[in-house]
């Protein structure tokens, strides 16, 4: 290499001193350059943020959306209708399932004190 030539011998101490004296940028410059970098940074490509949904929208998502809600509404309406005006077939099938007592309830022949009459007389 050329490090042995007279020029290198003369200059080597100057170069060594300059290499040891590394100039450092100020904190202010670093801050300015970081601000430039962030200000000129392109927007993330293809990452468009979704609009925020309200509480109703979130509840809708929770139950499964509009198809699920229409199903729930139909089931509720059917339940109310059956409760208010039960078809005969429903009464018969319930009676046969639960026994005769249910027949008393549906016919209105319930005696609330039945079995306890004697206690009332003696008390």
């Amino acid at each position, binding site marked *: 290499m050329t490090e042995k030539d*007279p*020029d290198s011998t003369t200059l080597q101490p100057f170069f060594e001193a300059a*290499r040891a004296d590394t100039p450092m*940028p100020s904190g202010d410059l670093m801050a300015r*350059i*970081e601000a430039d970098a962030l200000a000129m*940074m392109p927007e993330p490509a293809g*990452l468009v943020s979704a609009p925020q949904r309200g509480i109703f929208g979130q509840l809708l998502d929770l139950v499964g959306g509009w198809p699920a809600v229409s199903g729930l509404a139909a089931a509720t309406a059917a339940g109310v209708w059956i409760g208010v005006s039960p078809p005969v077939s429903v009464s018969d099938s319930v009676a046969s399932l639960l026994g005769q007592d249910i027949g008393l309830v549906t016919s209105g022949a319930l005696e609330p004190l039945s079995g306890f009459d004697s206690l009332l007389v003696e008390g």
Partner: protein
Amino acid sequence: MPLDAMNDLSDDALLVLYANGDAAAARALTLRLTPRVFGHAYRLLGNQADAEDVTQEALMRLWKIAPDWRQGEAKVSTWLYRVTANLCTDRLRRKPSAALDSIPEPEDDARGATETMQDKERVDALHTALGALPDRQRQAIVLRHLEGLGNPEIAHIMDIGPRAVESLIARGKRALTGLLAGRRKDLGYTDD
């Protein structure tokens, strides 16, 4: 991605992340490249305020070109050295060149000063002498002997052949020797 995790990424990869809107990559590039660019600008200009202006402008150009950067085609550092040197040359052309007489003379009591002070004077003398060289010689000397780059990379930065680099460095060193030889004794060096 955390800043620490970016230490292993190349400048190229960080620039691609930056172009995709990664703020952490912007900070990592700032921390990594600013000292390098500033150091080079300062050594070419010998002036803190001018070096700061050039550093900010060079990096501004990098942020601007980031979306069009083609990964693998050129090294970010090579591109930055080139842009920085061009900006420094423009700035030096707008200012009167440093006169050789302006190389600071050591003060009489400098011999009793600390070694740090003496080193500072040596550095100042070198910077002033570098300022008296033609632009291309100064750039080649700084890249080779102060930045520590190899001739092939210097050739790439300066867009010339390796033999032209060697020629620039040899001529630059000869001129520097002439400028600084008389200062060796003043600055505490002994001829042995």
